[in-house]
């Protein structure tokens, strides 16, 4: 009974806080500090709301799925509400931090521009570099697993490369390949190659000795062993590298654009709009980058579920 009352109170207070932010003039906390109490109460009560929803996940079935989705979403919504309330309430200057609503409006009004940037950075540089980098990393790993000598030489080098800031190679690539997207793709290739190499080697070697013996007992050919035994075993490792690389690739391309670009691209947009102090536009570009990064990661996770449906870590997940 008490918990139900708390949850209803939480919803009421959150709605009240939203109406305050929408109706009052900017800078309302500067005028009436007392209004902060509403926000704090809403936050405290929303914690009860979240705990209640978390407990739902024990029930299982449809309810637990609702809980798994709704809890992070409500949490994120509360964060955005706090951000919006504080920025509007204390009238924080735009240069410091624009309100979420302003960022979304800026994004909405500049859609064509943002789309052109996205095409330049993501669809050209990131996709090309990612495919070449991951592909060559995979092929070299396949060679390395066959030869002990190559492995001994390559792996320490690969580990060394993963401990150094490869992003620093960006200015060199811009010099070699010019200002347009090929130079960014080159940075992405170098950044994604080594994680793929190391993970694929580890994956191909993770074969159960019993399975390897069985394959030999069946007189399997080298190619059969690879496709029927090694590759499926390596899939979880390969997908780890692919997911890690999807973020690395985006970072590499955007940072490389700080060193010289044509007049289009996400990195270019960020650096020029910072110069003009158009922070809402900068944040809108970041929003696009965040969406692109999360979408790639999510798509890869889905693909992983489809391909490695047999793996215990996937099978164990209750839908």
């Amino acid at each position, binding site marked *: 009974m008490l918990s139900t009352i708390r949850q209803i109170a939480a919803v009421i207070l959150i709605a009240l806080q939203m109406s305050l932010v929408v109706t009052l003039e900017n800078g309302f906390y500067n005028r009436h500090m007392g209004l902060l109490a509403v926000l704090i109460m809403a936050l405290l009560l929303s*914690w009860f709301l*979240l*705990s209640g*929803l*978390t407990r739902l*996940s024990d029930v299982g079935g449809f309810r637990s799925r609702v809980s*798994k989705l709704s*809890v*992070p979403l*409500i*949490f*994120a919504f509360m964060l955005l509400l706090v951000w919006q309330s504080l920025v509007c309430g204390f009238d924080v200057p735009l*240069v*410091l*931090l624009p309100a979420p609503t302003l960022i979304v409006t800026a994004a909405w009004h500049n859609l064509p521009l943002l789309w052109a940037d996205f095409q330049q950075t993501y669809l050209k540089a990131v996709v090309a570099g990612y495919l070449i980098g991951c592909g060559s990393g995979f092929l070299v790993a396949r060679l390395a697993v066959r030869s*002990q*000598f*190559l*492995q*001994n*030489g*390559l792996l*320490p*080098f690969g580990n*060394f490369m*993963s*401990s*150094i*800031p490869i*992003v*620093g*190679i*960006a*200015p*060199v690539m*811009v*010099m*070699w390949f010019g200002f347009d997207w090929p130079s960014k793709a080159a940075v992405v290739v170098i950044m994604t190659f080594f994680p793929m190499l190391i993970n694929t080697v580890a994956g191909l070697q993770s074969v159960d000795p019993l399975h390897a013996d069985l394959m030999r007992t069946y007189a399997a050919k080298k190619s059969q062993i690879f496709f029927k035994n090694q590759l499926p075993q390596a899939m979880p490792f390969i997908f780890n590298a692919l997911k890690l690389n*999807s*973020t690395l690739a*985006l*970072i590499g391309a*955007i*940072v490389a654009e*700080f*060193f*010289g670009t044509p007049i289009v691209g*996400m*990195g270019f947009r*960020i*650096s020029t709009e*910072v110069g003009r102090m158009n922070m809402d536009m*900068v944040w809108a570009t*970041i929003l696009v*980058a*965040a969406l692109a*990064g*999360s979408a*790639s*990661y999510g798509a890869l996770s889905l693909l992983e579920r489809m391909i490695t449906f047999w793996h215990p870590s996937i099978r164990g997940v209750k839908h």
Partner: protein
Amino acid sequence: MSGQWYKQQWLAVATMFILLTIIWYLAALILNGNQLIKNLERRQQSWSYSQIISEAYAVKRPALPAPHQVVAEIYKSVFQTKVTSKRSLLYHAQITLNSTLLGFVLGSLLGIAIAIGIVHNRTLEASLMPWVIASQTIPILAIAPIVVVVLGAINLTGLIPKALISMYLSFFPVTIGMVKGLRAADKMHMELMLTYNASARQIFWKLRWFAAQPYLFASLKVAIASSLVGAIVGELPTGAQGGLGSRLLSGSYYGQTVQIWSALLMSALLGSLLVWLVGFTEKRMLARRGGQ
């Protein structure tokens, strides 16, 4: 592992190293040679291959400096200049190192704190964990310059903004590793603790904390490498304040390729040194508990 195996490993690494150096020299010859040939043909002068080969390794602004040029530049800017001078690579490396270490310490503490919260509180886990993972799919490095510029606007300059970026990059691997590690305690041990009616705090300090240490060190290695990347990218917009990142940027503005490559090599050395240090600490810490 026998000594024989080590020898082979050493041989393979050495072969790899020599091979890479040869490739580097050849690439430098091809890239710089083409540059020279273009220049000479533009001035309508005749050229011969022997002349190009002799000049390719001594160009003032080469497309790819030869290894010995980079080593000479590093030697000059490390040993032959005062550490306090702006031309000294050590001076810049030390600036980068400061923000890397500060960010690494803050990020690790934050990561450990979040992990402890997640392990002990289910609501926190359900609401925070998805966002911890989502936070890493955002190319945060791309906004590093903004963070620095914005904080500069409210007169926060120098170490803190860069350290904040390093912190953001390093907290994630530590959080993920620690959540795994704090839950990796042996089931029998855990049940023993419960049998003794141990409190959550006692279970944490007597069991979970130690079970998590191997995981912690594995993620600290990743975290310190990310911290360094964060510090270097954070230095890009603050050319005047120095640091390896600003050396990279000024080098690329003025076409000083030798300067870029020496800054790159320096950051590579710094990165591998830091990761090695974490690994060394790990060996010492875990050896006390009978680890390998």
